[in-house]
């Protein structure tokens, strides 16, 4: 469905994408890489926003650059959080369906269906300017899927979503892949990609580092310690408890900001164990995240 041959994109002296060659078939493919890896540039090349400096991109056998007809088959969810804020969610999606060439009635029907799929019925008549980040992300996804495209290009679609929203969106993406759509999802978070697909492309500095099954790449990544940052009520106790386990190599904590950063070589066990530790010791966890630098470290390791 999508074929990329020796694709490169330069911005003057800066390389955005460097000699990429790959093919994707129907199903979900994950673009995994740290911020600035070239994922967005690649997606903008795939949507015909940028012209390849070298090489070619074919969707369904047709070039993308300056070929607006092929975009009928493409749905695109950009990463940037920009909108016409005076529009309501419904008008935003319906408007794009009208631009796609559907008549008023069909546009409204398609918009309603997509908005419902994204769980935004309650908020569809509010102005986008009043939406939360997660709601804006959902409405952006609704406009990407409303015309039922064969190819879906989603740039960091889970950014800013709450856990329930993330879960629902990941399920939807997986289902679209199972229905035979070619879905490309970019993310810098491994476990997000992992929940949606087994097929990933690892990208860093515009180059393809690895391609294929997620388990092989996961093994490579797991051999590298994962950093997990936690903000919680009782940093001292949690630090002490975490250090009791062999897979936790180090813990740095800052009592004033109630934050700790642990380094583990077994992220899955770490995440499974954490809720029990918190419950047993009456520790309230406010937030938990994995700093992106960790992925960058893995990529550096893979490059070496």
């Amino acid at each position, binding site marked *: 469905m999508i074929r990329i041959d020796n694709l490169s994109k330069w911005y003057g002296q800066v390389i955005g994408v460097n000699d990429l060659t790959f093919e994707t078939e129907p199903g979900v493919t994950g673009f995994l890489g740290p911020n600035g890896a070239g994922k967005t540039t690649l997606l903008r090349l795939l949507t015909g926003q940028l012209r390849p400096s070298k090489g070619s991109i074919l969707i369904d056998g047709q070039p993308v650059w300056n070929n607006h007809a*092929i975009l009928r088959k493409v749905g695109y969810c950009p990463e940037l959080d920009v909108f016409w804020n005076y529009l309501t969610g419904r008008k935003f999606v319906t408007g794009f369906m009208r631009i796609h060439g559907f008549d008023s009635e069909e546009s409204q029907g398609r918009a309603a269906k997509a908005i419902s799929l994204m769980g935004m019925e309650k908020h569809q008549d509010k102005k986008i300017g009043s939406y939360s980040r997660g709601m804006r992300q959902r409405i952006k996804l609704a406009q990407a899927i409303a015309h039922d495209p064969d190819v879906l290009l989603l740039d960091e679609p889970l950014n800013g979503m709450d856990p329930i929203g993330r879960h629902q969106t990941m399920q939807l993406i997986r289902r679209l892949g199972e229905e035979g759509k070619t879905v490309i999802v970019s993310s810098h978070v491994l476990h997000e990609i992992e929940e949606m697909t087994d097929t990933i492309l690892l990208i860093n500095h515009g180059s393809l580092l690895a391609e294929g099954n997620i388990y092989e790449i996961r093994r490579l990544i797991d051999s590298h310690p994962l950093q997990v940052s936690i903000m919680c009520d009782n940093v001292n106790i949690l630090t002490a408890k975490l250090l009791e386990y062999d897979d936790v190599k180090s813990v740095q904590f800052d009592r004033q900001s109630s934050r700790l950063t642990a380094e583990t070589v077994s992220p899955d066990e770490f995440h499974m164990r954490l809720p029990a530790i918190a419950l047993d010791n009456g520790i309230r966890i406010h937030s938990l995240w994995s700093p992106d630098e960790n992925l960058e470290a893995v990529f550096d390791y893979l490059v070496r």
Partner: protein
Amino acid sequence: MGYLFIFFLRDGIHSRRAVWILVMGMIPVAAALVLLLSSRIFENSDLNLRLIYPQFTYLMFLHFLLPLAAVFTGTAVIGDEVEERTLQYLITRPVPRWSIVAFKALAGVVTVGAVILVSFALTYIIMTAGSGQARLARGIPSFLRSCGAMILGLAVYMPLFGFIGGVLKKPVFAGLLFVFGWESAVAWFPGNARFLTVAHYLHSLFPETIRIDPDSIGNSFFGIAISANRTPATISIAVLLTMAALFTALMTVLLYRKEYRLEQDS
């Protein structure tokens, strides 16, 4: 594809720029009201609204409102979508890129044109109201011709500034320099340089400039220049239409050829 026009029309109406243009559009009306009140209060003054009407509309509309509104709206045709980063939604739709810029420019012509025409109509009524209904009616053909000239002017300025907005980083400044520098000065130069301005052809079409009575404004450079340097109406229309087509084509080619980088590109 035609929906793009409605989309951009709504977008134009909702923009903050629309408010500014509306405010600018009321400046000639307010000035006309001040003149009307002055003529009524100071009854012995030499202020004759009917006589100064041609010069007033000429300066207020051809040299102030029309080019200024066109600069602010035209430079936003591509510039706004790039600056606000909404261009990525538009150019990833199955519509030709020319339609994006052409319909946005057309929506600009309609919204700005509406403001200008309403302002022009109010000014006309205020400044000729005292002359009686018969004179008011007699002036309507000339009024309509002026409206046509201004719409034609917008059709040229809008894609011209659209092109400038797509090429330059500070298009408004460049646009202002163009209208208040090049257009305002060169249109009066003797020789052939004036043929390189849009204003010259608009002057030639604007009936109010043709009706200026040199005696009423003395032997000023302004009066002589207006009276002496006109191009026949048909040629002026043809040149303006060619310019509009040329600038629209340039603006369209630009969107086809140019890539717009966003801050996230790396």
